């Protein structure tokens, strides 16, 4: 199981690394833009008269703060997920240990 999971993880890493190694964003004004921003740009290109009628209530004042918030989001998720899996693994080990103790 561990080996399968490591292989799956390696596949994800390869899938994510391939685009970085290929010349896929050659000729783009900026390499690897966000698809969400491209979607916005496509709207503006086909409907130049459209005026967004609402602006974000709060915007991170700089790219650094955006990074902070994304890192925070990832850390909250990874922290909780890691806690859960670690807890469950520990509980499973404890149960196994108790079982072997009881059978002694």
């Amino acid at each position, binding site marked *: *199981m561990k080996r*399968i*999971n490591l292989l*799956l*993880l390696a*596949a*994800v890493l390869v*899938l*994510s690394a*391939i*685009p970085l190694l*290929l010349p*896929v*964003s*050659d000729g*783009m004004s900026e*390499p*690897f*833009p*966000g*698809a*969400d*921003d*491209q*979607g*916005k740009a*496509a*709207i503006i290109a*086909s*409907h130049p008269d*459209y005026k*967004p*009628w*609402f*602006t*974000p*209530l*709060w*915007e*991170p004042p700089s790219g650094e703060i*955006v990074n902070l*918030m*994304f*890192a*925070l*989001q*990832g850390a*909250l*998720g*990874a*922290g*909780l*997920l890691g806690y*859960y*899996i670690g*807890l*469950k*693994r520990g*509980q*499973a080990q404890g149960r196994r240990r108790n079982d072997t103790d009881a059978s002694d």
Partner: protein
Amino acid sequence: MHIMEGFLPPLHAAAWTAVSLPFVVTGARRVVRIVKQHPHAKLLLAACGAFTFVLSALKLPSVTGSCSHPTGAGLGAILFGPSVMAVLGCIVLLFQALLLAHGGITTLGANVFSMAIVGPWVAYGVFKLLRSVGGALTVAVFFAATLGDLATYLVTAVQLALAFPDPISGFAGAVVKFAGVFALTQIPLAISEGLLTVIVINLLTQYSRDELDELAFTAEVAG
């Protein structure tokens, strides 16, 4: 899949909010019921939310030369049913709209519909279908998470095409255009999401048998 703040005309924004609201309300009721009936599964439910938090924070490069992110919505849909994800997805989208100016309040309904409703229902449907025809658990999980993720991005493309049909090629042309931006980019990312979801399910079937039993998920696995 985020439609940016203000980038849906008011009528569209209101309509998608009206469509999504009942799903979120039903989902919230279901979350309350799950927490009451299966208190032991509470932490697993939170872990499913956490998975969505991590995955939607990962902006990955794609072969189209642009970046997008997985959604992580398939896992919770498979384990707890799709309606639960309407709530968890809504929380993630609110976090991003308020703290990251990513997505928006006016487009929340539309974004919830694609990421937290259609994606999870597709994932759930694919999972049930593959299991019912005897597909292996990991295979069913992989295709469920992958296709659910792709469906989300296709819905975003359709939503934008409805609001912004192409001046020349109309709605159909706009679907193709927006799908080129969103869904094409998403293909390798959706595969990554499928693989990551299988990893988590592998860990859960190994360590969280008791919770999965309680959710009658292992009956599902055995059956």
